[in-house]
């Protein structure tokens, strides 16, 4: 699986944000993952401790919000929930739909602690 590679990508961003925010620790990481993103939430949870070991986010809690699959029908305009392999309109059954939600692979937010020492030397 590739969830470890995805977690490594996640850690690159966590490191960047933590540095920008002058954080000493990242205590929680919130992701938004859609079923059509290609990554599996449970596997991300297993890979995260490995990817974050020794980093500013070591020991951080990983929270994953599952985005629903929602399609908008290009024929009748209705929005409805759908299945990953059946993206048809819940109203009129047409398969010509647009995916409004369900492909997300987002780092949503971080909870962090700042360094004790202040910036002014």
């Amino acid at each position: 699986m590739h969830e470890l590679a995805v977690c490594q990508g996640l850690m690159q961003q966590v490191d960047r944000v933590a540095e920008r925010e002058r954080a000493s620790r990242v205590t929680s990481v919130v992701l938004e993952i859609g079923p059509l993103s290609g990554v599996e939430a449970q596997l991300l949870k297993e890979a995260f401790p490995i990817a974050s070991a020794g980093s500013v986010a070591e020991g951080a809690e990983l929270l994953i919000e599952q985005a629903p699959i929602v399609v908008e029908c290009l024929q009748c305009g209705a929005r409805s929930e759908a299945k990953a392999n059946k993206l048809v309109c819940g109203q009129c059954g047409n398969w010509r739909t647009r995916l409004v939600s369900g492909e997300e692979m987002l780092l949503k937010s971080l909870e962090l602690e700042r360094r004790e020492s202040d910036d002014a030397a």
Partner: protein
Amino acid sequence: MCDTCGCNVTEGNRHLVEAGGKHATTESGKEAVTVLQNLLSENDHTAAHNREHFDSHNVLAINLMSSPGSGKTALLEATIERLGREFRIAVVEGDLETENDAARVRDKGVEAVQITTGTACHLDAHMVHQALHQLNLDDVDILFIENVGNLVCPASFDLGQHRNITLLSVTEGDDKPAKYPVIFRAADLMLVTKSDLLAVLDDFDPHKAEHHLRHLASDVQCITLSAKTADNLESWFDWLRDEVLAQEERVARGLVQKPRVQPDGAQMHAQQRGHAHDHHHRHDHTHS
């Protein structure tokens, strides 16, 4: 870059950025920072860099994905044999081990760079970027990237290509698009391969495969062909010819093309041309 241009704002999370300010305080008194960045934005950044290279050299870049053994390399061999005089073709091959596929392609007279990933089950933009250093894109019209044989992981990683093609051979089961929605949804073209075997199979219906593809809200072309007997290869070549022309037009108009499945945010990003790639790149050599 991406955390200021809002390129990962979707309809689902727009309210978070519009609420004003990315910083809030959580109950525990710690600070929460809203990020809203794609987990693979580093890869996407390198992919955009690759795409710029392709566009600046007027190269059409195509990513081929499928199970192992669906006939990606055989398709390339047949394509090079017949279209090699019409278009200048080069290939980037991805496998865990061996140079076998690159060797097969080179035997047909075109340049091939082999990426051996070792254990990585997919290609990523960085690997492709390294491979591009070994090619002279001035001499290329179409670059095929043959991804690692895998129906799961390759779909998640943008390489900088313009189009995705997902292959499905007739020995694999016509419900595969329903079983692997992500990789089939990502296709700009679906190729049903090894049609020469349909005569001895009683359990594969190309119409059913297409039906499952349509249920992924995909309206892309579905072509059934055989690299071995050359059955219906012309339909595939016509698609390629149209795509080469389309790429020429896009380059002339300064437009950037990504494969069909992209979140809203990525579309916005694609429209921001003139996005400089000078920062955090230490490229002392030139890309020819």
